[in-house]
C-alpha cells in the first residue's frame, strides 16, 4: 500500500491531460541525457495570461490564445547519441491518438534534418478541445498536450511561452482526410 501512494500521486497530475503518458516513456527517461516535464493547469495558465500586455500585439495574441486553454503539458527527452530511442517507443501514445475524437491533421517530415512532427487535434461536437504534438529528431523527442480551445496554426505563436518549445511543423498540410482513411485501413 505504501508503494501505491507515490504511484497514485504520479498519476494524479495526468488526470487533466487528454492523453496518458505511457509507462514505456519512463524507461526511455532512463536512457535520455535530459528529461524535462512541464505541467500547467488551467488556474496557472489564467494567472500567466494576466501578465501579458494587451498593448503589445504579440503578447495580446498569446494572451487570447491562453484564455481558451485548460492545461499545457510538455515532456521532452534529449539523448546523447542518435537513434537511442525507437519509433516504437511512442507507438502506445500514437495508439491513444487514434481514439474517437482525435485526428492527425498535420504531418511534417524533413529528410535533411531528420525532424518529424505530427499534430493531432481533438474535437468534440465540432469544437476543438485539445491538441497533441509528437515531434521527433534523431536525438530528441518532444510530446506536447494542450487541453482546451487551440488552433494548430496558433502553435507557432505559443512556442517559446509556458515551456512550449518552438517547433517547426513546416508548411501546414491538412492530413485529416488522408489519415482518417489510412488509420481505418490500419485498424482493419
Amino acid at each position, binding site marked *: 500500500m505504501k508503494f501505491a501512494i*507515490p504511484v497514485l500521486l504520479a498519476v494524479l497530475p495526468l488526470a487533466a491531460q487528454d492523453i496518458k503518458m505511457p509507462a514505456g516513456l519512463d524507461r526511455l527517461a532512463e536512457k535520455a541525457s*535530459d528529461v524535462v516535464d512541464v*505541467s*500547467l493547469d488551467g488556474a*496557472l495558465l489564467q*494567472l*500567466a495570461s494576466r501578465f501579458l500586455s494587451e498593448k503589445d500585439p504579440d503578447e495580446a495574441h498569446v494572451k487570447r490564445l491562453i484564455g481558451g486553454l485548460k492545461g499545457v503539458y510538455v515532456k521532452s527527452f534529449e539523448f546523447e547519441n542518435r537513434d537511442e530511442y525507437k519509433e516504437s517507443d511512442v507507438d502506445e501514445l500514437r495508439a491513444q491518438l487514434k481514439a474517437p475524437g482525435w485526428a492527425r491533421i498535420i504531418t511534417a517530415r524533413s529528410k535533411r534534418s531528420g525532424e518529424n512532427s505530427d499534430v493531432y487535434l481533438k474535437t468534440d461536437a465540432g469544437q476543438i478541445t485539445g491538441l497533441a504534438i509528437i515531434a521527433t529528431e534523431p536525438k530528441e523527442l518532444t510530446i506536447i498536450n494542450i487541453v482546451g480551445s487551440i488552433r494548430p496554426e496558433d502553435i507557432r505563436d505559443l512556442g517559446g*511561452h*509556458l515551456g512550449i518549445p518552438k517547433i517547426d511543423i513546416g508548411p501546414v498540410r491538412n492530413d485529416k482526410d488522408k489519415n482518417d482513411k489510412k488509420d481505418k485501413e490500419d485498424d482493419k
Partner: protein
Amino acid sequence: MRSTSMVLAACLLGAASAQAADREFTEVVRVISDEFHTRPTSIPMFGLVNVFAAAVHPAGTRHIDLAVFEHLGSHDREGRNLSDAILSAVGRSWKPFVQVRSHKNGHEETVLVYMRQEGKDWKLLVTAVEHDEATVVQLLLNADALARWMASPEHCARHWSGDQTE
C-alpha cells in the same frame, strides 16, 4: 547596544520564520537526510535573509526557506528512488510544475519544482539534487515573480539547479 538588539531581533524573527516552514519542506529535507544519512549544512545568520526578503521583496520573493546539503558523494546512499520519495513527501496540495532530469557526463542532476497558491501569493518548492550536493528551497513569491517562472519554467528550474548552460 541598539544595533545588537536589532540583530538579535532579526535572528529571532528569522528563527520564527524558519519554524514556519511548511511541513512538506521539512519532509523533503528529511527524505534527503535519510537517503544520504546526513544533515543540512548550517547557514549562519540565514534568518537575516528573510528579514531582508520580507522588507524588500527581492525579485518578488517574500520569504525563503533553504536547506543545503554538501559532500553527498562521500555518504552511503540508502538507494531509494529519490524522485518518488520526494513526490510522496510533497503530497497532493502541491502541483507538479517542472521536473528536469539530466544525466550528462556521468553526473545525474534532478530538479523538481512544485507549486501551491497561498492567498494572493504562490509558493514554490524547489528541490535540486546533484552528484555532490542538494538544495531544497521554498519560496513565497508574488504574482510578478511567479509570472517569470511561468514564462520560462525550464530555464528557471535549471537556474536554481545551478546549470547555467541553457
